[in-house]
């Protein structure tokens, strides 16, 4: 049973005043694959290195299993780490790289050899055991780094952006392999990435960090559908959620249209005061028929889906929106086209926290006569 627990863990680097990781509270279950995600500089690596013992704690504690490891040396924490640049020992062969930790632990040569072979078989590395790392491709090096970790059978795996040096196609493929391997071995794993797609596809749960502060830790589904705040809402999902500041007037308006909320939304709205931000995902924004008109800026046709980038006048300023449509879509840049909201809509309060998730529709408003009747839009 190996769970991991960050308890109020804080790290402030020498010569800086703001903590790189600030009072992190995180519980990672036995056998769980937890992904730490956030933009560059958000403290993901620092959080991982604190767990590895490569960074000391300036506050709080970290437990692995039921042992407080806050003051335990890295080599006594029973962990294995995969580094972004793999950190393979250049002068050692693949086999010696993978067997290095066992050798340090004094495991007899015979057992070492069998365990390295076993791991090499799992990772398809058998033909390369006698090669030096520099004679391997990027993907093979990545697998050696994984192999070095799994040979150990540690209590926890730590991975810091292990796929970010692979090309896009290999990255997607390896992603699946890592997930399968982790499921098979059932070892608790903390996985760091800046790529929210990787996070959403791999993590049992995903912890979102920003400026060293944990924003939300939830299953991918909950993160997507019930983001706790504006940051998570904007960070998770691609293209990003449409976030529209609507100020403090009521009813809420998008461009010239009123936003009519379903009942729970309306009730919640009555409770809050101050400026509000309305969020709805690209797939909740329907282009074609609709009471609000916008101009098409660009159309990205990916074959399986089409992203339509739109621009409209909102509160006296141009506002950019994205819609995700099913193909075929025939609109051209420059076309004027109707908009409607057809899915979940989130309201965020002044402080960025989500107040309510509901559904909304756009109501035709007192648009100047004539505008609604120009150029018939291309219907999907």
């Amino acid at each position, binding site marked *: 049973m190996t769970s991991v627990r960050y308890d109020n863990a804080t790290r402030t680097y020498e010569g800086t005043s703001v903590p790189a990781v600030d009072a992190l509270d995180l519980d990672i279950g036995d056998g769980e694959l937890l992904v730490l995600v956030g933009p560059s500089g958000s403290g993901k690596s620092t959080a991982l290195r604190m767990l*590895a*013992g*490569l960074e000391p704690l300036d506050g709080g504690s970290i437990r692995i299993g039921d042992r407080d490891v806050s003051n335990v*040396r*890295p*080599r006594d*924490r029973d*962990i*294995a*780490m995969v*580094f972004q*640049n793999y*950190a393979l*020992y*250049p*002068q*050692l062969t693949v086999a010696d790289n993978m067997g*290095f*930790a066992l050798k*340090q*632990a004094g495991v007899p040569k015979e057992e070492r050899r069998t365990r390295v072979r076993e791991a090499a078989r799992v990772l398809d590395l058998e033909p390369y055991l006698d090669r*030096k790392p*520099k004679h391997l491709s990027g993907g093979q090096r990545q697998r050696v780094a994984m192999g*070095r970790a799994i040979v*150990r059978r540690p209590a926890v795996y730590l991975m810091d952006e292990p796929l970010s040096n692979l090309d896009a196609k290999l990255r997607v493929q390896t992603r699946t392999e890592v997930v399968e391997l982790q499921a098979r071995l059932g070892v608790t794993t903390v996985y760091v990435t800046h790529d929210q797609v990787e996070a959403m596809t791999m993590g049992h749960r995903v912890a979102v960090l920003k400026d060293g502060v944990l924003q939300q830790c939830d299953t991918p589904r909950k993160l997507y559908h019930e983001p706790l705040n504006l940051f998570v809402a904007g960070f998770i999902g691609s293209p990003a959620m449409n976030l529209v500041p609507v100020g403090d007037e009521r009813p809420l308006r998008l461009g010239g249209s009123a936003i009519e909320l379903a009942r729970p939304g309306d009730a919640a709205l009555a409770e809050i005061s101050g400026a509000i931000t309305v969020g709805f995902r690209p797939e909740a924004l329907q282009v074609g028929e609709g009471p609000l008109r916008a101009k098409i800026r660009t159309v990205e046709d990916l074959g399986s889906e089409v992203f339509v980038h739109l621009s409209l006048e909102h509160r006296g300023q141009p506002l950019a929106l994205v819609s995700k449509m099913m193909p075929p879509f025939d609109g051209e840049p420059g076309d004027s086209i109707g908009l409607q909201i057809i899915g979940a809509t989130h309201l965020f309060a002044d402080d960025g926290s989500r107040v309510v998730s509901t559904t909304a529709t756009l109501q035709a408003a007192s648009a100047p006569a004539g505008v609604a009747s120009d150029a018939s839009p291309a219907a999907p």
Partner: protein
Amino acid sequence: MSDGPSPRVVGESRSVNGAFGLLAWVVGLAYFFPVFWMVLNSFKSELDANASPKLFFHPTLDRYRDVTKSTTGLLSFGEAFTNSAVVVLVSTLIVLTLAIPAAYALAIRPVAKWRDVLFFFISTKFLPVVASVLPIWILAKNLNLLNTRMALIILYTGINLPLAVWMLRSFFREIPRELIEAAEIDGAGLKGQLTSIILPMAAPGIAATALLCVIFAWNEFFYAVQLNPVQGSTVPIWVTTNISTRGDFLAKLSAASVLACIPVVLAGWIAQKRMIRGLAMGAIK
């Protein structure tokens, strides 16, 4: 190792490059010529050597026989060579043994105030050699170390140590931090990190550092002649014993100088092979 012709850079003029190349060769040859002349002289008779410059002569090994012949009461080549070898090897070994952990503490896990430490090391080089020789001589005399190899071993260790620490520190800093961290997580203590990661990866740098220590200790003359004029004298002192006040000695001195040069040239050659092999290993990436 042949690198083939150097790649041509767009926009560079071949004639200008050629002119600079020629100049480099001329300067190089000008520097090398005296050495060449010394080697040539060492195979001549004294008469030929002292005559007006002469390129064709009957080569002979007699001068080498002369200078390596031992006369009782005089410093012999064998004795000087042994003294030098012991002093050079022992002092270099001590330097490396002390400098490697020091460089680790400055490069890989910097101690507090490592800048001050580094400055302290180099500050020991500020004092002019002539200014320090008297106190050192008095110390050596009172410790009964005059005319012993021990005196030179201690002295050369002290002189080479700061430089070695500086050099090794910069070589150690080139080792990616993740490699050492990976080794640490994989269970390697200081000894494991040193023997499996740091020393193999820094081998070219260590070879270069050792070479510099060897060269300095082998060539050092000033302290040696002050502290060990009678016993424990080293090769540079022996070379000067071939200067005589009577008769010609140019050919003999040339032969002695060539013998004094061979070990350092050899050491340089060996170290160079080690360095190239280390670099070719692709130490970093």
